[in-house]
């Protein structure tokens, strides 16, 4: 009996290890060649070439950082009250409206691309940084995710807080925020990764202004000899964020409920 448990544990570890290696392989195959530059020995010369000879590529790194940070902050700020609205406020047509939200969430970005383009063109925002940020700010997924977590906030807690103070800010600050903090962190990370990796909006909404594009689009245009180090620099913020907030992501994922 003990032997079979030990054996099954061993098999589980092996399978998980293999799956882990499979997922780590692309990262390793980007990191390792970035430490080679011509010669047989590992060297950081490729990074030198990248940061000095192709120094202007860093402009796009900061472009990406600007988009990702501002989109993340504003998207969370916008989705927070909307999530509360769908989770706790009762009004006629709420469920129908939420159903529409769900459908929009399931639409791929390419499906809403043309309406987005026409709208941005009408507002005269094409080829400006706002054209890249605005479509990502209003994310149905963010609203949906926050709504799911806010449904778990007990009604009694809300009522009790409303007895203490009638301000909505106080309600959010003292009753809702402590309950959904891990969810907001996880959402912020997801939105950050999504906006860091945006390709289609950058290619289409900034077609005539390459200077405002994020790094995700410009990566392919770097010289071949520095492409691996550039990809490593590109991956770096995402990996750092994942390592720093690993526990928050795990805890919020495990407390996620669909209904």
């Amino acid at each position, binding site marked *: 009996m003990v032997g079979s448990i030990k054996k099954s544990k061993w098999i589980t570890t092996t399978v998980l290890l293999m799956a882990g290696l499979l997922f780590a392989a692309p990262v390793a195959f980007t990191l390792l060649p970035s430490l080679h530059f011509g010669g047989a020995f590992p060297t950081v010369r490729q990074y030198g070439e990248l*940061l*000095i000879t192709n120094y*202007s590529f*860093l*402009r*796009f790194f*900061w472009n990406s950082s600007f988009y990702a940070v501002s989109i993340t902050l504003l998207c969370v700020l916008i989705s927070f009250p909307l999530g509360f609205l769908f989770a706790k406020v009762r009004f006629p047509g709420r469920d129908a409206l939420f159903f529409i939200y769900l459908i929009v969430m399931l639409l791929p970005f390419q499906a809403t691309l043309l309406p987005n383009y026409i709208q941005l063109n009408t507002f005269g925002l094409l080829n400006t940084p706002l054209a890249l940020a605005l479509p990502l700010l209003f994310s149905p997924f963010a609203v949906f995710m926050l709504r799911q977590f806010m449904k778990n906030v007990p009604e009694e807690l809300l009522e009790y807080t409303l007895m203490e103070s009638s301000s909505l800010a106080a309600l959010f600050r003292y009753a809702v925020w402590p309950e959904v903090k891990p969810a907001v962190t996880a959402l912020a990370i997801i939105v950050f990764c999504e906006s860091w990796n945006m390709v289609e909006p950058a290619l289409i909404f900034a077609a005539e202004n390459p200077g405002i594009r994020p790094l995700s689009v*410009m990566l392919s245009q770097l010289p071949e000899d520095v492409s691996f180090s550039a990809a490593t620099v590109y991956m770096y913020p995402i990996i750092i964020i994942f390592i*720093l907030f690993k526990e928050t992501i795990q805890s919020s994922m495990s407390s996620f409920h669909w209904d």
Partner: protein
Amino acid sequence: MKKTLYAVLMLLPLLALAFFTVHGERLYAINKPVVKPVLVETAHVEVEGVLQKQMQIPASALYTENDGVYVYVLESQQGYSRMLHSVRKQAVIYTVRPEGDIYVTRGLRSSDKVIASTDSALADGERVIIQF
């Protein structure tokens, strides 16, 4: 405490990126050889009754190594904020005219620019800064 240390260590590369954003262009200018390119002059020379296209280059552009004579040809490509230049090592065959001019008979095209002078040694494929 340990986590804060990790966070600080992980954010250090970001500082490095910020440093290179500010000082990259200066470092680029310091580290790369400064070269002076000249456009080759095309001449049509009659050799044994046949009109041949030859390229006149300055004598300083020729380099001799044990395996032959070569010049460095300038190659340019569009970078993000400006043109990026590099040099290509090109083996040539040349003749010296009676008046001392050097004419390349094989290895160059009429639109090529050769490096007439440089402030440090060049290598094949090296990025350079241009001084006119």
